[in-house]
């Protein structure tokens, strides 16, 4: 204890200063969110008034009601949620089963297959999106949920992460189960899958966030407003109701707040998740 204090070198004053600076910086970081929240409770008159105050003078939830009633934001919220959950659940399953096979089975071309999957991680989305759009058009899948979900059935990132986690499972365990007469499907679903919980939950978090913020693909695929997702709807309404700042603040809050709440609940997992994804570097 004594030693640590000495080695950190700073006096008490500089320690307080350091803490103050760090706290100030964190407040600056979340200031845009606080401002958004407070503005979403103001009226349009108050937002564009000459005299500005940070906090709303007479907080109102009317903007949220407007966003829900006039702009139908609950619908988009639900669509985004369903889309993100569907993709997350599917990719968790496909990633873990692919990671398991690529890690535990020995077969010809395994290494090549895995290298190819890794290589796709470096392909920028802008290269593949134009042909993918044409493919969906050809298949007649535009404006359907298939078009959103099928191109995300597998993710190279998920497969990579799951393969890494599977290396931690001893082969002896599989052998023991095999000797007991378990078939491979049983082994994967009942023995392997439960052991991959940690990796599954970090992939789930990333996948969900990516799907939740996905903009371009749903924008290109979905035509009817009733099937649209939140980020696209947000951009759509910013054009349509460009002067209703209060309504747009509320709509933006609807897209951001659930993510923030979810993050605050699972923050430990989030941070562990990105730390483990960086290890590959």
């Amino acid at each position, binding site marked *: 204890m004594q030693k640590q204090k000495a080695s950190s070198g700073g006096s008490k004053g*500089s320690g307080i200063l350091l803490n103050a600076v760090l706290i100030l910086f964190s407040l600056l970081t979340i200031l845009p969110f606080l401002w958004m929240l407070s503005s979403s409770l103001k009226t349009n008159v108050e937002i564009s008034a000459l005299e500005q105050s940070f906090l709303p003078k007479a907080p109102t939830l009317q903007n949220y009601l407007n966003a829900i009633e006039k702009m139908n934001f609950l619908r988009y919220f639900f669509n985004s949620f369903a889309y993100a959950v569907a993709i997350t659940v599917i990719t968790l399953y496909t990633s873990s089963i692919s990671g398991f096979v690529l890690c535990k089975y020995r077969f010809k071309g395994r290494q090549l297959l895995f290298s190819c999957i890794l290589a796709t991680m470096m392909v920028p989305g802008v290269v593949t999106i134009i042909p993918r759009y044409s493919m969906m058009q050809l298949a007649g899948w535009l404006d359907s949920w298939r078009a959103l979900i099928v191109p995300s059935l*597998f993710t190279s990132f998920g497969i990579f992460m799951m393969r890494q986690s599977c290396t931690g499972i001893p082969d002896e365990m599989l052998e023991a189960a095999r000797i007991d007469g378990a078939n491979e499907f049983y082994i994967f679903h009942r023995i392997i899958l439960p052991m991959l919980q940690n990796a599954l939950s970090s992939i789930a978090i990333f996948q969900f966030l990516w799907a939740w913020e996905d903009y371009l693909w749903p924008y290109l695929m979905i035509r009817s407003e009733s099937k649209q997702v939140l980020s696209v709807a947000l951009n759509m309404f910013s054009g349509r109701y460009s002067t209703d700042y209060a309504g747009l603040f509320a709509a933006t809050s609807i897209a951001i707040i659930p993510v923030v709440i979810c993050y605050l609940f699972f923050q430990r997992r989030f941070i562990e998740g990105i730390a483990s994804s*960086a290890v590959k570097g």
Partner: protein
Amino acid sequence: MNAIHRRHPLRSSSEVVLRNLVVCGLCCFFILFFLVPIVVAFLGSFHLWNPLKGQYRFNGLTNWKMVFESSLFWRSMGNTFIFAAVAVLARVILGLLLSCALHSKTVRFLSTLRTLYYLPTITPMVAVAFVWKFMYDPQFGLLNQLLGAHINWLFDARYAMTAIVLLTIWKDFGYAVVILLGGLYSLPTDLYEAAGIDGANAAQKFRYMTLPLLKPTILFIVITSLISYFQTYIPVMVLTQGGPGTQTYLASYIIYDQAFVKYNFGYASAISFVLFLIIALLTGLSFRLSGQTEKER
């Protein structure tokens, strides 16, 4: 002993079925959604390709010539390089400063601070870009109020790019902080104690120990950031649409604009391949560099 496990000769039928299912699924998926699109995009770059008009006609190198003769393309490439360089530099420097500060023993509320710094990174880009669009509003925006300035951020050619860079830095610095902090925790403490006994001061320790030891982590951040910044278009789309003039056109935004606003698929494919090449080069470079740091160890 290992050999027995590695090549168990009694492969059960269920293993063969499961393996074939997975390999088949993977091959179909990656061929259909990666290999085919890459080939199609490459072929498409030699065609006059407009899906709205139903055009798909070979036109040789016309698209490529148009790309390299277009001043907007060069302008946007220049913008992209500046944008990426500034954003990466800021991300690394802020990340280093904050992670080292958080690493110091006197810091209280470490996990709360880290959580707050990381908050912008997890929030959806489109929504966050809208918040910043309002922050930049010359009439009621928070930024001018805070700075006591009267800047028309998004419509003034001098500030538009700064506005996009600021948003990007704010959104991403937390990622660098978390990863570098992880790197700092993995450094050997006894080495620092030894250096302390030898009379090294804090600055010397940072310069000659922390920085070299964190090099692989910093490199990882630089490369992944560069790759993602070369593909940035959402902030441009929400904040400025490339304006004022061509001030904030980024390479990816041109592709987006040409492909899905003007439906020049062939031309957009050609640009996307240029971008692909640059990103492939960067990735290759990163492997070379990380190979070198391996050797240095």
